[in-house]
């Protein structure tokens, strides 16, 4: 596998982790041979996966020791079940204990696995607490989003707790997914079949432009690797000043764009000429545009 030509979107969780880290450095914890499968899926007569849809482990990134978690978006939409969640919680608690090792979370999830909903919701609460506690101890937690399931539900909430995020065009970040919004609020609120609307509302380009994600990556493992390295260098320490800066950033965003009805209105308000052409921009031109409009913040989150 060659990281420069391998699509992040098309890769498995294990391939992403291997390509992101230094070659041969990945050491998996509680690997598939341990068979720590979901205790709930059997009740529903559903097939299990040996790693319950998430890889956790450690390795090195340019020689620097890191913890890593990678969700498999093709197994039950990358959803958080009891074991899946416990593996990530445990990894984050290890990061808190060691404090100096950053955590890379390769999100690819639709949120909580509804077949084990209570355990999954509890897992999300534990994970968010563990992210914050790891950051308080001094560990940076970086989220990487560009998988087929996007990053929704509790995954979106957890991503919002991270030190910094990198997203690709294919990545989507939100809490309620488009089908959920349409089901609850009607097609007038959001037409989930309008893929262009979904992408410009939740997709990676929009998230980068409004500051929801710190960096934009092209859809290759190498681009995600470069972005992870940059974010590990730049992410702010977790202090009261950081939280105050994040609050100010969100208030300012609401003040500037709160009355916009569509992402294109926001991009226009940001001063982008021909904002309607943003979705069609190739990655390099988009990154240049985004860097000129929305400098990656280094003091917030």
């Amino acid at each position, binding site marked *: 596998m060659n990281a420069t030509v391998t699509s992040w979107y098309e890769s*498995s969780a*294990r391939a992403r982790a291997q390509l992101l880290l230094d070659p041969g450095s990945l050491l998996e914890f509680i*690997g*598939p*041979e341990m*068979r720590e499968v979901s205790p709930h899926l*059997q009740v529903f*007569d*559903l*097939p*299990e*996966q*040996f790693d319950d849809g998430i890889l956790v482990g450690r390795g090195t990134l340019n020689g620097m020791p890191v913890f890593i978690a990678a969700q*498999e978006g*093709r*197994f039950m939409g990358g959803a958080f079940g009891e074991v899946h969640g416990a593996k990530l919680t445990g990894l984050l608690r290890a990061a808190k204990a060691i404090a100096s090792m950053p955590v890379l979370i390769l999100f690819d999830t639709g949120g909580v696995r509804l077949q084990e909903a209570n355990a999954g919701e509890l897992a999300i609460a534990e994970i968010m607490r563990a992210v914050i506690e790891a950051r308080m101890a001094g560990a940076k937690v970086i989220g990487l989003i560009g998988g087929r399931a996007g990053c929704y539900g509790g995954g979106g909430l957890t991503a919002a707790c991270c030190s910094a995020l990198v997203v690709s065009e294919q990545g989507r970040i939100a809490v309620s997914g488009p089908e959920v919004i349409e089901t609850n609020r009607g097609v007038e609120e959001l037409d989930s079949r309008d893929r262009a609307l979904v992408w410009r509302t939740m997709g990676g380009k929009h998230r980068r432009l409004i500051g929801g994600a710190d960096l934009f990556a092209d859809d290759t493992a190498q681009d995600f690797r470069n972005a992870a390295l940059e974010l590990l260098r730049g992410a702010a320490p977790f202090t009261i000043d950081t939280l105050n800066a994040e609050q100010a950033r969100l208030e300012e965003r609401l003040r500037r764009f709160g009355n916009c009805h569509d992402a294109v209105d926001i991009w226009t308000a940001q001063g982008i000429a021909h904002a309607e052409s943003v979705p069609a921009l190739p990655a390099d031109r988009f990154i240049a545009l985004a860097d000129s409009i929305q400098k990656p913040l280094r003091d917030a989150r």
Partner: protein
Amino acid sequence: MEDLTFRHTVRARAGGTRRLAITGVVASGNLEVLVERVLPETECLLEIKTAAEGFGQVWSAVIADFVDRYSPGGLRLSINDGGARPDTVSLRLAQAIRLMEAAP
């Protein structure tokens, strides 16, 4: 769900020295294969959990073809199946053998 077990005596040990490999994913029309080099060199064991019930004869034929073609001696193959077609199963099994032959 249906559990199937196939045990074969084979002519030679599987190539390579890797102890463990995994390929595939549990999704609709897909499967994961976990391979472990844990058995005597003339034995091969396949343990399958499949979401598609009633296809034991098809599995038996696909496995017999696989064993004949690759002689996977010493390997225990554990499969979680999301209803994959026989050609996908054959492909994943071949990938699993190739991974075990790769440099550690």
